[in-house]
């Protein structure tokens, strides 16, 4: 860049501005240029559709036919007269609580195990991460076979161990959600595991060594040294898992079709049904905005709560 050779202090302020401003402007232009493709895509494919769906939420908007402005009718109908809406919200929370808790437990345990002196560490990490990159549709298809009553692999395991073929995973409303959670757990824990492995590796060995010299046992080191130091990773994993599990769709869509009854219908599955089976875009948008608010609120609460337990 053509930097001024004269000491700027000795030059009049106007000359200074004249010299540096075009350079600044060029930099800014370049930055904007680099940002432009992403910004354009973000605007066209994210901001505009989000805005449009907000508008849609105030309309009775069938894909074909007349569109009528109905104000808050969709919201009122959703919250008061829809016979299944709250049950679907309940299902969604059932999934979120079950999935997030098990996911963190399993991924943290395995991350800890992989931190210890294990042979073929890299291989295990690869194997545990594999389900994350395999397509959910294929996973769900395979699990559907595993869950087959009487002759599925899981039923056969039960048969060998207990003499009965175990729960009717996909045919019984009480067992369908646990079946969806288990399958999602298998498919999803690898991601958090990798994040937590990275978090654990960042803990200086000197800390645990010092605790060990002071006489702290394994459990005590885990509870008072490792766990507090890995909380930033745990926090990140929790927030991301909660957000993604509130949006769960593929698993109920492929594995159970939302059934039996609506035992495994979640919010996104429900809005898909309204949007793409009934083509009622207005009502579907209202459900989408409810979900958006829900995610915002829960994430906000999580961020407020982190001061109490996350140690940076």
């Amino acid at each position, binding site marked *: *860049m053509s930097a001024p050779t004269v000491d700027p202090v000795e030059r009049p302020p106007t000359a200074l501005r004249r010299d540096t401003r075009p350079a600044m402007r*060029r930099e800014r232009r*370049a930055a904007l*240029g*680099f940002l*432009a*493709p992403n910004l*354009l*895509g973000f605007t*066209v*494919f994210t901001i505009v559709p989000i805005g449009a769906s907000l508008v849609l939420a105030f309309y009775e908007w069938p*894909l*074909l*036919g007349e569109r009528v402005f109905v104000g808050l009718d969709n919201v009122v109908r959703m919250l008061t007269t829809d*016979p*299944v809406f709250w049950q679907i919200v309940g299902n969604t929370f059932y999934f979120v609580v079950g999935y997030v808790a098990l996911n963190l437990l399993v991924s943290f345990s395995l991350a800890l195990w992989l931190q210890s002196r294990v042979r073929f560490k890299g291989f295990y990490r690869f194997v545990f991460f594999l389900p994350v990159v395999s397509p959910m549709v294929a996973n*769900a298809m395979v699990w*559907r076979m595993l*869950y*087959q*009553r*009487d*002759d599925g692999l899981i039923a056969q395991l039960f048969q060998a161990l207990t003499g009965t073929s175990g729960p*009717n*995973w*996909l*045919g*019984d*409303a009480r067992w*369908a959600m646990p079946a969806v959670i288990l399958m999602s757990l298998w498919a999803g824990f690898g991601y958090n595991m990798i994040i937590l492995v990275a978090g654990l590796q960042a803990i200086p060995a000197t800390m645990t060594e010092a605790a060990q010299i002071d006489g702290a046992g394994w459990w005590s080191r885990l509870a008072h040294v490792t766990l507090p130091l890995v909380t930033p990773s745990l926090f990140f994993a929790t927030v991301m898992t909660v957000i993604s599990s509130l949006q769960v769709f593929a698993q*109920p*869509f*492929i*594995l*159970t*079709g*939302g*059934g*039996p*009854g*609506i*035992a*495994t*219908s979640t919010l996104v599955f429900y809005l898909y*049904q309204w949007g*793409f*089976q*009934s*083509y009622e875009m207005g009502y579907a948008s209202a459900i989408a905005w409810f979900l958006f608010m829900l995610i915002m609120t829960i994430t906000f609460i999580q961020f407020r709560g982190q001061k109490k337990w996350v140690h940076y």
Partner: protein
Amino acid sequence: MRIARRHAGIVLAGAVALTLAACGSGSTGGGGGTAGSDGGSTDGAGGSAGGGEKVTLRWAMSADSQAEVDVWNHLADMVTEAYPEIEVTFESTPYREYYNKLTAQAASNDLACIAGLQAQRVSDVGSLFVDLAPYFEQTGFDIADYSESIVEGLTSDGAQLAVPYDFGPFVVYVNKDLFDAAGLEQPQPGWTFEEFIAAAEALTKDGTYGWAVNGSPDAWLGWALSVGGVYMADGEPTLTDPGVVDGFGREVSLVTEYGVAQAPDASGQAGGASDLWRNGRAAMYIDGPWQLINARTTVDFEVGLTTLPSVDGTSITTMSGTGFGITSSCKNPDEAWKAISVIIGPEAQQYIADAGRGFPAYTAAQESWYETAGVDGAREAIETALETVDPYPTPAGWQQVSALLVQYSTEAFSGARTPAQVLELVQQQAG
């Protein structure tokens, strides 16, 4: 530094170009990028279509296999052979997504000129099609050459929205080998519910079942119609009608009372019943004749067909079928009609029959379909079923009702809810 900036400029230009290209391809489904297909070339030729210039027409239809795509492409070529100035480009979509795409395209004003229309979708998307009757008169086309029930199924308020190419009443598919192994006589059209139960009970053993149940109304409405059930009134579903409850209850009782069928699992996939039958795990199930040739070539047992067993002397089944119509936004309807008249014309119907695709709606081609199918009893079963078939008109939103019925029916089959409760729940949500 100057060189670096120049590089940055090149990179930037590339990035912008890429983004624009991505936008272009990304929006083809949404209506922006139609140049090159209907929007571009048809419009250009639109004004001078009569002058012998080439007209390109888009034709949308579902296809689930390359074999089907090949059949449609062949028919598209037949159009150009007959009318050199017309070129038809076929747009294939899997059946599961076809009507979603059609509706989305209609909403974004990007409909193909010619589109497939299934009878049970008339209430939902029929408004996208124009009445073909005026073209019949202009060109001396005789709709009476096509089977009456499906012609009726493709009308709405007296308007003929499509000309059918295939159709069929739902019939019972039989695994003849299992009947032989059980020492049972092959079931004949006209058999009764009691005979059916006796056979199904004898066939249910060693992990094999007599029947494969299906929560879809396509499969069990026959029981309801046979006992006088009324599933719609004034354009609204009436699922709590006593006859409908009786009919659905009959299908459910095959699992819960007679134990001749396995309770189905909740599943996001259709086709559980046909899979059980194809795998030899159920001796009978209900489906349309369009499955026959496909089924015969993919199973390793002998296939038979018969009618739905009669209840108190009556056996009525529903039917389905698909035709082709002109969409209301088509800018070259005259050419589109010419193309359709080839696609559903005698030669094409003969070709479809010989290729063993759907059971032809064109009555003159049905004979050779029976020959291609080569299944004993197919003719008797289909012709008997057609005598009493219900054209299966549906209320608006029937697809949602149908999906909900499949979703909730698992609870009836498992005994968690009664058939009446399930129908009540679906009726509540449909309303």
